[in-house]
């Protein structure tokens, strides 16, 4: 199986080539709560995650809400 390398939340990660954003959320165990996903500075909305295929060297951020004032 061929793989690609992405940067996920600042850390280098190897994932199967052809993975979608939705599949990455499962791989990252981030599928159980609402998250925001940003790929190369672009927001990927929930309805786009099944069709958005990640590319080698993509910069991905998965974000949630934490406590803040």
């Amino acid at each position, binding site marked *: 199986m061929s793989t690609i390398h992405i940067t996920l939340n600042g850390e280098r990660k190897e994932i199967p080539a052809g993975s979608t954003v939705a599949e990455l959320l499962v791989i*990252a165990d981030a599928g159980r709560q609402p998250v*925001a996903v940003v790929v190369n500075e672009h927001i990927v909305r929930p309805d786009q995650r099944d069709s958005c295929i990640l590319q080698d060297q993509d910069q991905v951020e*998965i974000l*949630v*809400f*934490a*406590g*803040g004032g």
Partner: protein
Amino acid sequence: MGSLRLGTYTFSSRLILGTGKFSSTSAMIEAVRASGTQLVTVALRRFNREQAEDDLFGPLSEIEGLTLMPNTSGAATAKEAVKAAHISRELSGSPFIKVEIHPNPHHLMPDPIETWEACKILAAEGFIVMPYIPADPVLAKRLEEVGCSSVMPLGSAIGSGQGLSTAEMVKIIIRESSVPVIIDAGLRSPSEACAAMEMGCEAVLVNSAVAVARDPAAMALAFAKAVEAGFEARNAGLMPRSGSAVATSPLTSFLGAAS
């Protein structure tokens, strides 16, 4: 007590709570419930599977009538704040954004120039923009002019508990402002929140004072009561100050007259 209007939203509670620094999510939720607040701040952070149970979105969304106001904490520039606002709106679905841009981690004072720039962009995009600002009447007016729905001057440095050290400047902002003025940051005690409301603030935003209290839920309730008392006192009309004593009982002496 009358409603607080922010953009197209109205709130019966005039206490806004921050959700940071609590010992646990459950302690925070208890405080939010006890306070009766309808608007709480949250911050974006990177997802971490080890801390997945700390996600606040689920527990907060279960509280009826609660609106989220994400902040742009961590942004050092207008560009970063605008980016954080876009991501936050995507995640929260809320039009509220607390613009918070402080480049210096030691004093955490807001950058007025970057704040103004970010607010101008976000207000034009339709956000309900709530900027955290130094207590500067000129900046407050400029932010109102670019479409901010409120201005939120600091009472004193974030998390310092130094109270209303900016009171005289805040009074000028209140006098000049056509949008609600909300004290944000620095309050330590409910009496300070009450004083801010008596002074003419439309709401108060508190976080540390509640979060680090021995009993956060009880402190949250105390702040809610103080905010309400201050607002009602202001509407009732505070008596004028006098430089000398003014008797409340008759001073005519019947005791002397009887002898």
